[in-house]
């Protein structure tokens, strides 16, 4: 299949949205666009499997290359491997759910959906790019819609949050840019092409400079400690779909970048800085978890827990074993689905109760069994219940991390393991407080989820269960991609069993 469709389709949808006259039309057009994206993602998945089954073992499938800026050696080079397919699936899931839960947006509907779809385009483009320039291009495309989504449709101190988010993310991408330029000029062929670069040897001095630049740059996107502070503010101020996209998709851009760009093309750098990465990620995991315990606002809870969960992504990458890398991809997808669902539920609750303070809620299970059940599911997924995706991802990361006999990594793994207790504590506190206990008087007349909300939740739950119950297909999908990354790393990684 032609994977540029993944970019063209959202683009087309966005253009059509601009031409629409009223809000209803806009909604349906975006719904249709999102559905088509969803279908397309599945088509991609199945054709990917088919290709692989037919014995196509090339690193990237469906490769396409058009020259763009030949003088800089920049080209539209697209292609997917299992990791990208996984991320594309995630995006498609989150997009359709995001469109569904935003059904009630009344303020500037057209612009809202336009930005949502634009954001999805950025994400798809990012995940299929094999040219680092294009990748960077799409990375930045995805930033400004977020700014506007938060700033216009957000709540609370939205302007502050929007600014903070945009500036920190742009700061991250500035570092990425410098790193990319360093790589571009240090390789023997000046190229942005990922595949070309992966075949070249990048001098170690460059790696030592550029790896941290790239890793921290992408790390800002994925809430690397201590650059995570945009996460709580950004998420809490964003409108529901905004938070979903932010946490579900855009934080994953960073993780994907750390893995696919930083680690893949600069394995020596990765190895050199592994301890620091692990340290930071463990700090993020525990620190995020403990900070979550103190939060009172639901969105803050989820945002801080995202910091903690995304720490696992980084941990998995930092551990540099095949299993841990697979785990980290799984964690990205899992966290994307889960946190999107969590934000969707928070949005639903907020729309009804008009509060996000956990302490002001109680007993919602009685009036909103569906929403509360979803809340339970998402909470359980977050705390890593088997059968849901979070468990699979975390366990894979732990198993992968543990493969190092080195004590430092062992200790890091154990500390990371401990976070699942803390997670259980804050998730249960929040979930039980909200949905259990006596029903408050002011909530006597609340209604349960509407069709669109139910559909959105069910789609995301389906994704969570698909990974949680049957992880093997996912593992098979991601594993060859991780294998290739490992082949680049393993010759120089010492001490991995």
């Amino acid at each position, binding site marked *: 299949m032609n994977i540029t469709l993944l970019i063209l389709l959202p683009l087309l949808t966005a253009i059509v949205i601009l031409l629409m006259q009223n809000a209803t039309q806009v909604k349906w057009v975006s719904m249709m666009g999102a559905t088509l994206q969803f279908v397309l993602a599945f088509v991609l998945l199945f054709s990917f499997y088919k290709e692989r089954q037919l014995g196509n073992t090339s690193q990237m499938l469906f490769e396409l290359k058009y*020259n*763009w*800026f*030949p*003088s*800089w050696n*920049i080209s539209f080079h697209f292609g997917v491997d299992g990791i990208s397919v996984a991320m594309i699936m995630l995006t498609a899931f989150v997009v359709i759910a995001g469109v569904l839960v935003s059904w009630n947006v009344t303020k500037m509907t057209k612009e809202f959906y336009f930005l949502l779809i634009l954001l999805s385009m950025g994400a798809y483009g990012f995940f299929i790019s094999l040219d680092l*320039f294009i990748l*960077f*291009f*799409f990375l*930045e*495309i995805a*930033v*400004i819609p977020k*700014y*506007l989504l938060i*700033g*216009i449709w957000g709540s609370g101190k*939205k*302007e502050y949050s*929007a*600014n903070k988010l*945009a*500036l920190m993310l*742009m*700061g991250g991408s*500035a*570092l990425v*840019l*410098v790193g990319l*330029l*360093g790589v*571009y*000029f*240090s390789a023997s062929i000046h190229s942005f092409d990922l595949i070309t670069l992966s075949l070249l040897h990048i001098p170690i001095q460059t790696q030592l*400079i550029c790896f941290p*630049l790239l890793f921290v740059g992408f790390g800002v996107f994925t809430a690397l400690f201590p650059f995570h502070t945009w996460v709580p503010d950004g998420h809490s101020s964003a409108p529901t779909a905004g938070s979903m996209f932010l946490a579900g998709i855009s934080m994953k851009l960073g993780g994907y970048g750390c893995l696919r760009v930083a680690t893949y093309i600069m394995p020596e750098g990765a190895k050199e800085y592994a301890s620091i990465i692990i340290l930071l990620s463990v700090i993020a995991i525990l620190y995020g978890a403990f900070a979550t315990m103190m939060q009172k606002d639901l969105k803050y809870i989820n945002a801080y827990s995202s910091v903690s969960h995304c720490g696992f992504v980084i941990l998995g990458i930092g551990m540099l074993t095949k299993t841990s890398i697979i785990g980290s991809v799984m964690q990205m997808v899992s966290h994307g689905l889960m946190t999107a669902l969590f934000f969707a539920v928070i949005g639903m609750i907020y729309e009804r109760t008009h509060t996000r303070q956990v302490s002001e809620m109680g007993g919602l299970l009685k009036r909103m069994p569906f929403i509360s059940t979803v809340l339970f599911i998402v909470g359980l997924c977050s705390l890593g219940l088997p059968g849901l995706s979070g468990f699979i991802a975390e366990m894979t990361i732990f198993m992968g991390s543990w493969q190092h006999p080195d004590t430092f990594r062992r200790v890091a793994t154990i500390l990371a393991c401990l976070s699942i207790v803390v997670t259980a504590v804050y998730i249960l506190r929040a979930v039980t407080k909200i949905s259990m206990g006596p029903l408050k008087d002011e909530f006597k007349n609340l209604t349960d989820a509407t069709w669109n909300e139910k559909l959105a939740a069910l789609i995301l739950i389906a994704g969570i269960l698909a990974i949680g119950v049957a992880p093997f297909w996912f593992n098979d999908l991601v594993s060859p991609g991780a294998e290739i990354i490992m082949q680049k790393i393993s010759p120089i990684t010492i001490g991995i069993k």
Partner: protein
Amino acid sequence: MIETLTLMKPELIITFIIFLLLFIKIGKGVKSETMLLLIQVLLLLNFITGFIFNSEGNLFDGMYQTTAMMALQKNILSLGIYLISLLFASWFKKSEHMLEFFILMLSALLGMFFLISSGNLLMFFLALELATIPVAAMANFDLDKKVSSEAAMKMILSSAFSSGILLFGISLIYGATGTISFTELPLYLDGSPLQILAFLFLFTAFAFKLSIVPFHLWTADVYEGSPIAVTSFLSVISKGAVTFIFISTLYKVFQPINEVWYNMIMILSIASMVIGNLFALRQQNIKRFIAFSSIAQVGFILVGISSNSAQGISSVVYFILIYIFSNLAAFGVASAISSQTGKENINDYKGLYQTNPFLSLVLVLALFSLAGIPPTAGFFGKLFLLTAGASKGSYLFITIAALNMIISLYYYLRIVRAVFMEKNEQPIEKIEIDLSAKFALTICAAGIVLIGLLSWTYDYIQSLS
């Protein structure tokens, strides 16, 4: 003779237009709308003829030289002038000295053409003055406004001062090398202290015209006080022209001492970005704001220039092309608003999107382009500048440049925030925009979106440099 005509075609056409306007002025009695239309058509023709009958060569013993690249640069400036004639139509129509204004502007343009084509220091100096003195007069064209005359005064005095310094530098160079020809100069440059000193004196003139920190101080005041058309002329056309000659002078004439100027440019580039950004942060007046932001932009241009390679030239030219569209779009919107409401304060822009979606979108597009956000062309422009600059391998320099993009993003977003997010009790009412202005804004918007995505524009420039 024919050769002279074709080689000097751009200058001759401009001269022709100047004299045509002069005769019309003497004849008098034409309505200003018709007049403006005529001028716009003439400028469009000028722009179009820039594409045809281009040839390369030297005239007057190398005093005048032209290449395809120079023709392109001139054409970029012609395009800018054409857009200016469209964008500020309402201001022109109100002004009673429209013809004089255009005569002056075209003289300045002629000066810039000669500047680009100059082949020795004398031509360079004269062209620079021709490109400056009329602009100072133009800055005073809001005759009744105090700020306008203040701006004109600041401009003429400081540029005279800078010319003095420039001339002193030229005289030293002349004394040390015995030549003023660009082709001979590199043969005699050996980097002796006196030459470096002379070069610095010369360099500061460029720095002054380009508003490079610390020679930038006049910029903001002049931009703020001048009529908006002049401000945009200064910030786009002048800056573009001077950048073009600056880069070719550095690369060709001062190539023997490139280590000196590389370091110098690095320092000044960082200074310009930082200071420009820091000042832009706190500006309320939109013109003044753009002035400081353009200082920061110059810092970026310097990054590209520092690369000392063909990529450097093409990325700079490409950036200027994009910069013309972006900055003119921003000025166009600002002018549309200020000419109808007199509001130039950023706070007045609050809630603009509710009443003027078209203007807001163009403005935001322009700001995004200036900030370097994809998919606008500014992204590519800035990125290529940085890429060109990075070829020297100075990570610190590039990192500082890249981080400065964040500060600049902050203040560009401030306007975006005002336009889209903040509430206003009395937003600016619906503004009627001239058809021509609307057309020009649309062209700008299209340019902002397309130039980046259509990669052949860059490749074309690259093929010339």
